């Protein structure tokens, strides 16, 4: 059970308090109707799945309830950083 630093609570809490919410910084278009099918497919389904540095979202669902972003290495599972939603990509 990994420990995750919640940037809102500012402490490390156990994984079971969190829900992973997939890749980070996948932004929903302001007007989806401007997206063609391929762009929309990319938004819906295409995901970075790197061996290594990965930007992902978590929600401290059984804690403060906030979604936030993280950079984690998918080979070691170690976090490089977690940061609040809306902050620029690290």
């Amino acid at each position: 059970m990994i420990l995750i630093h919640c940037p809102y609570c500012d402490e490390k809490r156990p994984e079971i308090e969190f829900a992973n919410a997939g890749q980070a910084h996948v932004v929903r278009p302001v007007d989806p109707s401007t997206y063609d099918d391929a762009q929309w497919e990319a938004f819906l389904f295409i995901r970075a799945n790197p061996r290594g540095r990965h930007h992902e979202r978590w929600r401290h669902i059984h804690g403060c309830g906030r979604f936030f972003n993280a950079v984690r290495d998918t080979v070691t599972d170690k976090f490089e950083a977690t940061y609040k939603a809306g902050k620029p990509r690290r």
Partner: protein
Amino acid sequence: MSGYRLPSGGRIDRSRPVSFQFDGNAYQGFAGDTLASALLANGVMLFGRSFKYHRPRGLMAAGSEEPNALVSVDRGPGRFTPNLRATNVELYEGLNAASQNRWPSLKTDFGAINDRLGMFFPAGFYNKTFMWPRSFWDRLYEPSIRKMAGLGDAPTEEDPDTYAATYAHCDLLIIGAGPAGIDAALMAAGTDRRVTLIDEQDEMGGGALADPALWPWLERSMKMLADAPNVTILTRTTAFGYYHDNFIGAVQRLTDHLPEILPATGRCPEGAEGPVEAAQNNPTQGSLGPPPPSALRAATSPFRGGLPPREKLWRIRAGEVVLAQGAIERPLVFEGNDTPGVMLASAAKVFALRYGVAIGQSVALMAAHDSGWHDVFALAKAGVGIAAIIDMRGTVDQALIDAALAHNIRVELGAAVIGVDGRHAVKGIEIASTTGGNRRCIACDALLMAGGWTPSVHLWSHSKGTLKWRDDIGAYVPDQPNENARCVGACSGDWDFGQGAVIGMLPTPKDASRIKAFVDFQNDVTAKDIKLAVREGFRSIEHIKRYTTNGMATDQGKTSNLNGLQIASTALNKPVTDIGLTTFRPPYTPQTFGALAGHAKGELFQPLRKSPIDGWAQDHGAVFELVAQWRRARYFPKPGEDMHTAVNRECVAVRSSVGIFDASTLGKIEVVGPDAAEFLNRMYTNPWKALEPGRCRYGLLLKEDGFIMDDGVSARLAPDRFHLTTTTGGAARVLNMMEDYLQTEWPNLNVWLTSTTEQYAVIALQGPNARKLLEPLVAGIDLSAEAFPHMAIREGTICGIPTRLFRVSFTGELGFEINVPSAYARALWKRLMTAGAPHGITPYGTEAMHVLRAEKGFIIVGQDTDGTVTPYDAGLDWAVGKKKADFVGKRSLARPDIVAAGRKQLVGLLTDDPNVVLEEGAQIVADPNQPIPMTMIGHVTSSYWSETLGRSIAMALVAGGHSKMGETLHIPMPGRTHTAKVSDMVFYDPEGARLNV
């Protein structure tokens, strides 16, 4: 001859004899013995049979690495445990153990025929045969293989014991309480760090327990640790796995060593009802009551305290971990090395000095390492006769030879054991010089092996710490950590037992392809199996492991991995480091399923959520169904009624007078803030901004992929306050999805979401008499049709309780849904039942609710839709805001396949025979006469008998269904094909006349 109790010595308590049984024979040992030491003291050398060849086997080790001496322990009904190591079973009065994998007896085992035929069962033999004739595989070959495999028997009865679990936190976790671990704990004792020291044995000390010279130190140290308030000591606790971020799993064994299991100290709840039914039925509950006649019988007693848990799972988060797990001695590989009476030298020392038991009266040592010499000297000092020391090395430290001479021990250097005389016990050994000549025999009754040492790096490897190979000790040792951890003592490769040679197999002049020299004792993997694997092209150590099963036994290769690696290295003529290392996987030693499951048993397995009205339903005979985490009343049978009859009655009551339904489990979300309407407008398919306060609206929610996710009727309480409802199963998902959009896509909206599912219980009153019943009980709300129309909400009080009263209907009748604070729901329900009695008020369950809504063509998300259905497929075009620029899922509805013709669409289905109720899930075809595989064009999603309509009704997803109105379709069932016509989904009161009254 065989093992015997030494006249003195050891840590056993000779003043406390303990009686026990093995294979039906009675024996006696002492407190402090293990089953292994006690049996050995009684001269028992034969402990079990090996896995494949059913070879007679004795003790090889003294600890948890023991591969041979596996026994079953039977503690009475439901308390049968197979595959326990005799070396880990602590002796207690009345212990009843039995050997395994033999028939009819341990001494005479018919399975031993496998040994005679062993040449036909080399590694991987099953891949090469049993293929012809084909049909024999299922009927003969496989059943035979299965029967032969396996070790002990599985338990056959439910385990009455309980298991506990806990989290724990410490700054320093020390695993292993040998001298190195104790030293680490002593260093930290008295500091402000929280220290936990755990060890798998019943007593702290590790190797020191077999070294009487260290006992005074051990006693002093343990006292200091016990006195240190910052140190927690856990014995009989195995750290079995090392997980992310210094999270360690450990299991503590609490009762297996006790002769009797006495009730725990916890007390029952004083007086009053408890949620445990058994407690309610027990007249003596409320106190400890009279002691149960037998401690073990108390397991089935209804006391809440009951027996103490058998084991406890510790989930430990540590700041720093110190691994002090020691090292395991390596056996030597030669013909006959598995004969009972052939033992690790260090184990013989443990038996002698810790338990006061000698393996034999005339013991030989086969050494490749200095440590064996020291062990033998210790045995000699303890009074054990030493027949000879054979060392494969041509030269050894002169001090060892001097010491041997001082003990008058014969020494044979540059020689190796090449055979063992005796099948059930050692009678003598044959040795030869390492160059092959000079074969001679030595009489002895036991043979010790000193093949060097393997650091226990299991947990280190679980933690993904790296390993490096050390040629001088022929073993992998810890290198770079991946967690905040370090290894100390022997598990880091540091020890003071001297030097040794690193070898795979002892040299032998015999034909190596004809002898059985065991590497993995339990799985019967021999050196020639490994060589065969290499010959057949298996080069990676993982391949060799899997092909031969070396290291895959219940000891997980603790004594076999390194020998296997060396033998493979020799056979491949490649350095060990080039053929890899098998991965160490948790658990370190096998751990009980029950311990991992912890408390999660029966009612504690997973929470069963119950509505505030559930108790009334239970008292009134409801039959329940499970929906998501909840249970809901499905129907309320009267005496003699089956489901069909009860549901018909409930439906008729709603249509003719009034029914009452518990809708509390529906999810509720309160959406509050100036941007509430804007937010809902973006989430739901339909428009929300124009909804007036006091009015309700059906809301349809899609996932971003355009498929229906959830639905529900929601109300606007105020310009900035909405009361949403969701499906029972969808509540958590919907809230999470809404939070996701709100927090990450539209963070500027001033709106907040709060789950109110459990704040309000919901009682639905449905039927033409609903208003009449409600009117006298409600204050502050005008219930008249004009003042309170369909799809409206009003706030007031009911029986003095504040209520949010919805005028909505999922039945097609005049209906109200009464939201009240949960705590009052049951009392209100009872009040309504009383008040409704003159109207024949009838409680109905989810089944009648399903029928009633189907008569009206209302869908149930999750039943009539399944995650592949769009609003258009479901005929819910009207609920999609065509003019809205965007909502969640809108863009996906324009994808090519979603707008293509021929999609499955939801329609009504009326069977030609009105008495036929189709099966839900039944498949629909256009042409019933086509061959299999048939082209299926849809399936029945909902199907019921409608008592109101006097016929069956169904809903179905049918390809192009909306354009198939009136067409006949076919539903092929086993034995009969039904026909049905496509129809509109609204079967009852299509004008909605009954609603607007």
